[in-house]
């Protein structure tokens, strides 16, 4: 008994199509799923691991191979492999599930890392761990937006997390040096912006060391510059006011 096996027919499964329009025509190549992004980022170097077949198509799903003349008119060559490489690097890709998934996961982690880096637990002045932030982000059902920078998203996340757990931006420690006569007036204005005033010294100048929320830095800076006409100064003592070193419970 013999089974009919079509030898001239190659069936492609698991295809990710990469398209490119050139010279008014559409060209497609058949690639493996989850591989194109890897090729573009340079992780995958073996072309055969990316391309299912080296031929260039007009329509992959119908199996229509591009005509030689079209290829020459569009790419100036009929070397299929070269054209495939060009299409791979410049064509439009379908991002497949795993690729998207890893990208989102990576962004999620990245956001959590940024949040953990910027924030502290206001009670202990110690940072939260990334894992904890990740869990909290899942709790508030935060969904990552792939076309927004992770940094912006991190700031959004902080706002949302504040409702859920005790979290705060790590304070910035600043030192102001203000001329005495304007100092008092200015201090009143600065008051709502400062979180904690650590020391005040009225010797020759008004010197204030305080903690502020990093978000108000620009405001404070402008205020000081405007009010003192450049005679007051402001210095950043530390970017993040966090506890250093390990603490043993005793």
């Amino acid at each position, binding site marked *: 008994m013999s089974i009919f096996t079509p030898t001239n027919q190659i069936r492609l*499964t*698991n295809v990710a199509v990469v398209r490119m329009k050139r010279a008014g025509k559409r060209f497609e190549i058949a690639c*493996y*799923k*989850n*591989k194109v992004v*890897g090729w573009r*980022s*340079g*992780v995958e170097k073996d072309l055969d*691991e990316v391309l299912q077949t080296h031929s260039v198509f007009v329509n992959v799903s119908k199996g229509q191979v591009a005509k030689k003349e079209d290829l020459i008119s569009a790419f100036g060559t009929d070397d299929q492999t070269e054209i495939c490489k060009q299409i791979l690097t410049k064509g439009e890709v379908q991002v497949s599930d795993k690729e998207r998934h890893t990208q989102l996961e*990576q*962004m*999620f*982690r*990245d*956001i959590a*890392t940024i949040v*953990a880096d910027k924030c*502290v637990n206001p*009670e*202990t002045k*110690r*940072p*939260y*761990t*990334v894992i*904890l*932030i990740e*869990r*909290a982000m899942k*709790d508030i059902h935060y969904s990552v937006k792939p076309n927004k920078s992770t*940094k*912006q998203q991190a*700031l959004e996340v902080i706002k949302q997390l504040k409702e*859920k*757990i005790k979290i705060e931006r790590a304070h*910035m420690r600043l030192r102001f*040096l203000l001329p005495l006569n304007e100092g008092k007036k200015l201090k009143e204005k600065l008051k709502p912006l400062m979180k904690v005033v650590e020391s005040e010294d009225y010797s020759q100048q008004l010197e204030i060391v305080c903690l502020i929320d990093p*978000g108000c*830095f*620009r*405001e404070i*800076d402008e205020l000081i*510059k405007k009010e003192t006409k*450049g*005679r*007051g*100064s*402001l*210095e*950043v003592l530390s*970017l993040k006011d966090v*506890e250093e*070193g*390990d*603490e*043993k*419970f*005793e």
Partner: protein
Amino acid sequence: MVLNGVDKMSQLQKNTANIRNICVLAHVDHGKTTLADCLISSNGIISSRLAGKLRYMDSREDEQVRGITMKSSAISLHYAEGNEEYLINLIDSPGHVDFSSEVSTAVRICDGCIIVVDAVEGVCPQTQAVLRQAWLENIRPVLVINKIDRLIVELKFTPQEAYSHLKNILEQINALTGTLFTSKVLEERAERETESQVKTHSEQGDQVYDWSTGLEDADDSQLYFSPEQGNVVFTSAIDGWGFGIEHFARIYSQKIGIRKEVLLKTLWGDYYINMKAKKIMKVDQAKGKKPLFVQLILENIWSLYDAVLKKDKEKIDKIVTSLGLRIGAREARHSDPKVQINAICSQWLPISHAVLAMVCQKLPSPLDMTSERVEKLLCTGSQTFESLPLETQALKAAFMKCGSEDTAPVIIFVSKMFAVDAKALPQNKPRPLTQEEMAQRRERARQRHAEKLAGAQGQAPQGSTQDGGALLASPQGDEPRGDEPDVASVSPQPVPQEESSQEAFIAFARVFSGIARRGQKIFVLGPKYSPVEFLQRVPLGFSAPREDLPPVPHMACCTLESLYLLMGRELEDLEEVPPGNVLGIGGLQDFILKSATLCSLPSCPPFIPLNFEATPIVRVAIEPKHPSEMPQLVKGMKLLNQADPCVQVLIQETGEHVLVTAGEVHLQRCLDDLRERFAKIHISVSEPIIPFRETITKPPKVDMVNEEIGRQQKVAVIHQTKEEQSKIPEGIHVDSDGLITITTPNKLATLSVRAIPLPEEVTQILEENSDLIRSMELLTSSLNEGRNTQALHQKTQEKIWEFKGKLEQHLTGRKWRNTVDQIWSFGPRKCGPNILASRSEDFQNSVWSGPAGRESKEAGRFRDFGNSIVSGFQLATLSGPMCEEPLMGVCFVLEKWELSKCAEQGSSDKQNQEECDPTGEGQEEGKTCPSGSENQEQQDSHSEETSAKGESPVTDCYGPFSGQLIATMKEACRYALQVKPQRLMAAMYTCDIMATSDVLGRVYAVLSKREGRVLQEEMKEGTDMFIIKAVLPVAESFGFADEIRKRTSGLASPQLVFSHWEVIPSDPFWVPTTEEEYLHFGEKADSENQARKYMNAVRKRKGLYVEEKIVEHAEKQRTLSKNK
């Protein structure tokens, strides 16, 4: 049911000579708790039928479930022998390695111990450990060889075989004791030698070396276990029998008519009896005569077992009648032979009698405490007793006397704190109601009823309804508990913390001298307290009330709020506790963390710290399942820390809460405790975060197959050439020797930076002096402000010069010429182990120059921008290019930096305007910058630099200039690193392992599997223990302790301490390039690269891009659902 009430016990407590404080020690599963059960049942606290099954001392649920003891707990027993009545404070201890700290706490407050050994398993690792612990604490041991029944039933030994087996075990134990003894003698000798050497140096006289080891002179006859001395008992706790030689000697001296003394000496050993001559002779092995022990003792027991197991009714009856026992009908008819054996044996040879008699005879009472032990307890570390203050030395007499007069100083040692459910405290427990109480209740109920009736009739005035409400409320609270404050009750007040937490802490303690009374004021001396300090601060003969004393570190004053008699899981209230007793003290949780010494005199030194066999080494990070439950977790961990002698709890800089435990089982228990008792929340446990450092090295001379690089002509196909270039974007110029030249986006400034690896010594110096660097930084910044701070401390100044000198000494050679003078800053955080040096000509901001350089006006041109450069450097060192971990041991040299005219103009303009007051300009983070999207990255990075200093009027489309400079500097540093061979640095533990010679091989196997390196191994003199010193990467240490214990069956115990950072030699970016390397490693070569493994793990954790294929083999993900 309970034979002895509290009154009886407190009566017994007063007779110090008849108190025995003992603990039961053994390897895990050798029957400590079962033995304790048997002893407890003799007091009628539990039924003798349940003894061995109930495990009364295992009060925790997980102890019962797992079948191992996890904590030491005490119980007081009564034992009468003849006219003497004894009080035995028995402490059961855990046998598992993980809980050896609990053993330490038990051993400290005892005078003697029972070592239990399984007759089948013999001497096990923990047996050795506990023997050593008992030895170190100077307490006297007695031996119980348990589970003799297993020799009969399981191994089916003949009595003769059993005898030789037992003899073997005894020899093993004695050998161990001998080793401990010799090592001690040798140590003493070594001490003597060092002393004598000191003397010879001073005398310069000729000296004859004393070759004798001192072993011959030392008396060790009292040391060994032997049945004829009466310190060995053979038992089967599960069947409830046990005997010492003496018991049989007494029986047979009557029966055979040989003197008891003779029998005592000969019952154990190779002697046989000649029945006809009634003489005892030495055994001649050839004749096949049975030793006395076999013939007279073992064979009888064997025949009994034989009869019962074969259910030979007649024979059993015969034996029973001949022994004069009465067996209950129920037991006799029972089909399980175990029950019958138990019934017969526990009457014939009651185990409690055998063991307790031995304890009372052989173990010392609190009065007999040796002076050696007292001195050892009082002298911490290398101190000698003579060096203690006189007042303290005087206390020794009190210890020895153990007096109960009112004048005797009260000395109590608290060896651990344990948590009990507040409900279990005697004052909170429901008590049977007295007649009076019942009458009161009835009265109240009637009243309430009446009021209710009145209310229902609607005639009640408002006042009375209120009254009724109040009355209603109070009985509701009280009734179910049956405990009312107004009713005559012993407890003065409920425990204060009861409301906040349901856990009350009780101190596990022993009175060494004086009488502890409830309500007494007493000093609490922490482990670090020094009586010398006190005597210095407080004038002699002080008479002020204790509250008015000046504060002395590690000392507090407190009241003994409540005293308890420890009865296993029960606690009984006591009014006072005479000396020599074990007790529980309530209300000390705010004063004592884990252990402390309580004393009525401040001249008492704290006892030496407990000697823990196992130090905590298993580290895990703990987090609440719900982030909002953080406070509960922290509170719970604090409680846990107090309740467990051996646990360590800490918060790391990363914000992780880390729990350090002695082993996996211990960890499990701690987690259970946290979940169910202390924190009552869900927690998740994970591997702690492992820190790394990044650094660069000199380019390697040889490649991975040890071929010299450069000589090879046949370089195989190189993938990297393409890669190398792709790393560095356009617009950055790279020299052949790694000089990076980069221009800011607005083309105003150009920086040239080079990265050079620092020599190892320099890195080390920088690490050590980070505090000094920090103070230097503070100083210069305050001087920079133009403020006159207090003059530089002379000492600090000296230190700074010394530090500089050291740096100069190590930074020699052409490459480093003048570098020390050119140091501009350290990083990260301005005090780290990285250096920024500037080689531009007009550089004046050296860290050494202090205020002078900074004040000069000429520096003004660059100064404001200088701050930006330093900030850029700080950021670059804080997170390296490999996995955003801090850098270490890198020197960045700023070769030159140029500002184009425009920028200079701007800065000088600004100076004119603002009189060189540096004002800050930062960007509010996250605000989208007006600039185009192509510099998003730059914007991002310098918006982070809120430390931006130096006002920049030249704001263009790229944002403020200072920000650009910071970003550019940071980028320059990163690229400068990337063109050099980068390496990861791993944190390393030093690892001390004690192991016996037979498991040495396995220790090595585990070490090498985990990338450990052995530095040295040494044999401990006088023992067969080896001490191995090794280093192990922290990254590989998770589960290390457990693995090594498992592989060596507990014979090796490691200790891990963080020691240093070490460069991992392999290049994380390495790929094979030469033909040889291809041959050797294959094309991918990612299997062996440790550094890359670490790097990728960190990057993945942080959500950074990892060069990893999502799918390794494209073909394999094909779905073959349709059959085509």
